[in-house]
């Protein structure tokens, strides 16, 4: 495993040369969306400048090239997460992937008496879709609580988990592999195994929106049936996400969106559907975006996901103690870098996250202030909002210092 050379990496990201309010940009908001390396932009431009056509239906050269580029991207993504390409469905974002599962899987497989088990640390994308279909399907939604205080703060309450699982009624278990607010890495494979042991019919869904960009991913090892994630958080473009899963399960699911591409035959009386993954890709797919995501995956693979993770752990080893040493700062979530990702939420006594975010921005430091689309968790942390700094391959130790300096500046600003 090669250590990641941040200075070299940074050169690949044009936006990092930018100034914000006369200061160099310190981008610490990758958990919201990542920046893009030149290679990703080039791959999309090349696609548009040389091969652009609609896929799957054409006999002309561009259509064949476009189809090949699109399907190659599917193959790259499949290899990146060790999945069967037949089970790699391109969606518009992670959110759509969850909706496909809610409408086509949960609403059909679950009913009265069944429990859909989720957690209190989920992103809205992994909460709202289930809530939307629940009234019609009639299953019950339960949430594993998150421990608020003490050494295990920010982790799942496993006793509560075991208790719910012991009912044997958990038919669908959905959990994030990594919290976008407090960074917690959940023991997904272990939890999945326990759910399956209690009910062999249970389906396990994993939110990989934060884990796939930052950790080596092996769908099989995760013991998951489905994994949802987004391209834009892993150096890829906006407009593309992935629903990866077992082809057999996808085969059994009714289609969700209807339209072109997903059909085998259409008559005015009815329709027969195409095979997976196409059954779930209605309409013209995000072709250039798939190409861009393929290039992002190539870029990450060239760095090596082990190296990416090691780089972030090294950053965490700087940032956690540095934050804790600032008076009035409380870091949320796991304290040991080995148990967490590089999304770091914190509170500053007496200061509101919005004010912190605004003042830090004037220092060039981009952090996020708010509920991070995970209101139930943020509420549990005792506030309506947190300030979150999140790191990625292009962030350096110097930027950790810039963060700390900006927090100090913010404090001075309000007490002056």
């Amino acid at each position, binding site marked *: 495993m090669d250590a990641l050379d941040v200075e070299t990496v940074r050169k690949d990201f044009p936006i990092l040369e930018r100034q914000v309010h006369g200061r160099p940009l310190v981008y610490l908001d990758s958990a919201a969306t990542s920046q893009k390396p030149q290679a990703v932009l080039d791959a999309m431009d090349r696609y548009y400048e040389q091969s652009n056509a609609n896929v799957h239906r054409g006999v002309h050269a561009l259509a064949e090239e476009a189809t090949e580029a699109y399907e190659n991207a599917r193959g790259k993504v499949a290899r990146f997460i060790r999945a069967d390409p037949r089970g790699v469905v391109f969606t518009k974002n992670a959110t759509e992937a969850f909706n496909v599962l809610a409408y086509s899987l949960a609403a059909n497989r679950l009913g009265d008496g069944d429990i859909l088990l989720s957690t209190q640390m989920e992103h809205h994308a992994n909460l709202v879709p289930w809530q939307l279909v629940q009234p019609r399907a009639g299953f019950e939604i339960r949430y594993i609580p998150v421990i608020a205080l003490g050494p295990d703060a920010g982790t799942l309450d496993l006793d509560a988990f075991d208790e719910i699982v012991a009912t044997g009624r958990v038919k669908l278990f959905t959990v994030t592999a990594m919290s976008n607010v407090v960074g917690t890495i959940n023991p997904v494979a272990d939890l999945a195994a326990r759910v399956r042991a209690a009910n062999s019919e249970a389906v396990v869904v994993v939110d990989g929106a934060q884990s796939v960009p930052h950790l080596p991913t092996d769908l099989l090892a995760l013991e998951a049936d489905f994994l949802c994630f987004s391209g834009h958080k892993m150096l890829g473009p906006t407009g593309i996400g992935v629903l990866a899963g077992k082809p057999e399960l996808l085969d059994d699911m009714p289609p969700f969106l209807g339209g072109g591409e997903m059909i085998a035959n259409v008559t005015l009386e009815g329709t027969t559907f195409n095979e997976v993954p196409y059954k779930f890709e209605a309409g013209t797919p995000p072709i250039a975006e798939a190409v861009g995501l393929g290039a992002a995956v190539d870029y990450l693979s060239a760095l090596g996901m082990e190296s990416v993770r090691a780089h972030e752990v090294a950053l965490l080893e700087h940032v956690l103690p540095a934050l804790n040493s600032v008076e009035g700062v409380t870091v949320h979530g796991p304290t040991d870098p080995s148990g967490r990702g590089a999304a770091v939420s914190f509170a500053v006594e007496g200061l*509101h*996250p*919005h*004010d912190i975010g*605004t*003042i830090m921005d*004037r220092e060039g430091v981009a952090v996020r202030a*708010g*509920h991070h689309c995970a*209101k139930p968790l*943020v509420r549990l942390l005792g*506030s*309506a*909002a947190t300030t979150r700094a999140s790191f990625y391959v292009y962030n350096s130790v110097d930027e950790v210092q810039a963060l700390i300096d900006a927090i100090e500046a913010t404090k001075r*600003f*309000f007490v002056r």
Partner: protein
Amino acid sequence: MSSPLDDLYQEIILDHYRKPRHRAGELEPHDVHVHHANPLCGDELDLRLRVDSTDPAAPRVGAVVYDGDGCSISMASASAMTEAVTGRELADADDLGEAFRLMMHGEGLKREDDLLDGVAFQGVAKFPVRVKCALLGWMALKDAIGTYRDGNQEHRVTHE
């Protein structure tokens, strides 16, 4: 020479933030209590209003207090609002709120003198994401007056 940030966090605003006026979680007696939330930012505000009906034809803001969890802009603006409206006829307070709203949307400055420290929030208009913060207290007041007129005592509002 003032930087935009100075516009946003004028000394007057910081002063209201550090030394809030009429910030309290109770007001006894009161006629209306409203709770307003800005869920996208996470700001929350409770406002209690006592109406002075000495002249039943022209009821006035007898007293108004606020409390809440929010950024400096939202809390300071609520503080400045309480000073500007206390003692005014309800209809007049409503009108003043409208003047504040227009100012925040960059649609001109009316009743500058009546807004008192509220004028200091003009600079916030340059920060679109923060405009909602500055409006929160005023929206709560407007809602409290409406709730009172409807003969009710409690109202909860979530701003989208």
